[in-house]
């Protein structure tokens, strides 16, 4: 029974997706199935998380082959909490899609692919096998290819081509790195590799491999200067899709990075410096981009990039505080970024655009929605005591504690980009909510008002749901912090992980 729990987060989406395929062309049953599936997934994720918290690292050996020989699934605190947060985002987006996804999309590809995407994410979090991780990444990118082009508008196609090409490049690099790792060790099990890799004589080669992994995951998580696909594409799909992308896709890259660089590799000085510079570049790129974008979705896209820099930098600093901060930020970011795009979706429904100069007056017409958004954006801006604040403390601490020259830049970048984030979000608030609605937009009909109560509920409830999770993270930071700290400890001391998988050290 225990073993099965690990794989259930994957299976539940696999089955939901497949069953949805049988209802091809019929949106209503798919909607219901999807809600049911994501809700069940949430319950399962909770159960898994609790079990891991109480019993420690859990392992399932698929096909019953013991560790380095089969594919092992491992749930430690990190992976199980990622699964948990993913399930929140999944549930919210599923709920949102009930009214937020146009009928044509919902009829065909959306729901099955959506579930396969969630499945891929859960798989990537839980797998304990390097090549299996590659497969999960492919599942994720294939699903995202479909979702990002679903609907077939010109902008989607244009973004899609860039998205597809650059992500495929990332996959190839990832595969190349896997080839090298297998060539060096003859094994693919992460725990086994954690033991084997340090014994390789040519450590220079290991560093190269680490770099390749970093580049591969770096493209996926959109770090500077590898980020281009993200601002090219994230604004094009419907908001529900963009939400799941924003909340989860780049984050799985960060997750993989954190996993690889704590379990298999340890950043050396060169690597630390490189990653810190990259993280600085990422923060600046995102911040500078966000300042000048006038479209909500485009601006949010750059904010995603900006905040990836925080986490990547946390990895480079490589102390318990830094890793804990990065992980905490990761959780927070998953919830917030998903929510931001859902909010953008509602705004688009209301005003027919997400272009800020054309928006305005929402404070007047939708005051409670405005309040909801305020919670979200101030959490993102890191306003204490909301969720974005806590990890920043850790990151600052780690940045100061590190003595390398690059860490100073990291701290400066952290301050600068936090300030820009605050500015950008406050400006967005001003433009979207406070400002009077420009006259040119008056004739655009409000698509939100005429919706039925249920539909309105399905659009607003997920935002409330995610916002309350964000609030919870912020106000009961102790819980999340404990988890983040435990994760950081797990990362710095992978022995329990290895022991659980291999049965020995």
């Amino acid at each position, binding site marked *: 029974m225990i*073993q*099965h729990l690990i*794989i259930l987060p994957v*299976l539940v989406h*696999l*089955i939901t997706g*497949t069953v949805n*395929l*049988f209802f*091809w062309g019929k949106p209503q049953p798919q909607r219901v199935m999807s809600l049911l599936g994501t809700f069940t997934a949430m319950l399962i994720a909770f159960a898994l998380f609790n079990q891991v918290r109480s019993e420690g690292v859990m392992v*399932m*050996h*698929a*096909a*019953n082959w013991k560790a380095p020989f089969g594919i092992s699934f491992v749930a430690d605190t990190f992976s199980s909490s990622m699964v948990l947060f993913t399930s929140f985002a999944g549930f919210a987006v599923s709920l949102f899609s009930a009214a937020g996804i146009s009928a044509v999309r919902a009829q065909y590809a959306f729901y099955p692919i959506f579930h396969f995407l969630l499945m891929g994410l859960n798989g990537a979090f839980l797998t304990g096998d390097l090549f299996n991780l590659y497969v999960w990444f492919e599942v994720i990118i294939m699903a995202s290819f479909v979702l990002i082009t679903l609907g077939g508008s010109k902008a989607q196609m244009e973004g899609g081509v860039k998205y597809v090409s650059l992500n495929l490049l990332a996959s190839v690099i990832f595969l190349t790195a896997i080839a090298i790792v297998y060539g060096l060790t003859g094994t693919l099990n992460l725990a086994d590799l954690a033991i084997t890799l340090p014994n390789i004589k040519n450590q220079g080669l290991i560093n190269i491999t680490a770099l390749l992994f970093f580049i591969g995951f770096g493209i996926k998580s959109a770090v500077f200067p590898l980020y281009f696909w993200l601002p090219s594409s994230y604004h094009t799909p419907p908001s529900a899709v963009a939400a799941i992308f924003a909340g989860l896709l780049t984050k799985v890259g960060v997750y993989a990075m954190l996993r690889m660089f704590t379990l298999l590799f340890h950043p050396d000085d060169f690597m630390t410096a490189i990653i810190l510079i990259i993280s600085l570049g990422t923060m600046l790129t995102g911040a500078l981009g966000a300042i000048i974008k006038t479209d909500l979705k485009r601006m949010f896209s750059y904010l995603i990039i900006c905040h990836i820099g925080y986490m990547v930098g946390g990895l480079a600093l490589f102390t318990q505080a830094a890793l804990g901060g990065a992980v905490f930020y990761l959780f927070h970011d998953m919830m917030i970024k998903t929510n931001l795009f859902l909010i953008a979706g509602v705004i688009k429904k209301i005003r027919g655009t997400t272009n800020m100069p054309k928006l305005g007056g929402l404070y007047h017409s939708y005051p409670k929605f405005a309040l909801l958004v305020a919670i979200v954006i101030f959490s993102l801006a890191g306003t204490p005591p909301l969720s974005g604040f806590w990890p920043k403390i850790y990151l600052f601490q780690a940045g100061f504690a590190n003595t390398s020259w690059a860490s100073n830049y990291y701290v400066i970048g952290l301050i600068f980009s936090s300030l820009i984030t605050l500015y950008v979000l406050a400006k967005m608030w001003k433009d979207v909510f406070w400002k009077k609605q420009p006259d040119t937009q008056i004739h655009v009909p409000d698509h939100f008002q005429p919706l039925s109560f249920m539909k309105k509920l399905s659009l607003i409830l997920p935002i409330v749901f995610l916002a309350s999770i964000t609030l919870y993270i912020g106000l009961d930071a102790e819980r999340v912090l404990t988890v983040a700290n435990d994760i950081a400890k797990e990362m710095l001391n992978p022995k329990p992980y290895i022991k659980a998988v291999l049965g020995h050290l």
Partner: protein
Amino acid sequence: MKNIILRTATAYLIPLLLLFSVFLLLRGHYHPGGGFVGGLVASIAFVLHGFAFKMQNTLRLMKFHPSKFIPVGLSVSIISSILPMFFKKPVMTGLWLNKPLPILGNVGTSLFFDIGVYLVVIGVTLNILFTISDSGQQ
């Protein structure tokens, strides 16, 4: 395109290819082959039919859209892989019949898994090709 030679040749090649695909599928566990290649060969048979007789006719021949193979195949694979869970074994664990069956040899869940793969591959390939040629007609 009306091409007698191709059509006639196709008519006798298709059964051959299909036969061959099943052959590849069933022997995969012991020899080169397996569900994947088998599925590809089977779909190539229908592609050939499509080239010779136009894709619409191929669709008519198949009676239902090949995309239906996908969920069916997936279900077969999924069921055969989660079946062990009900016997208190991890996912994917091979379950085998005690005695080898004639012709097929040892029959276990992995055979059904491979059959699922076979069906999915057929469904996928044909769906892609037929969708493309269908939209090309418009």
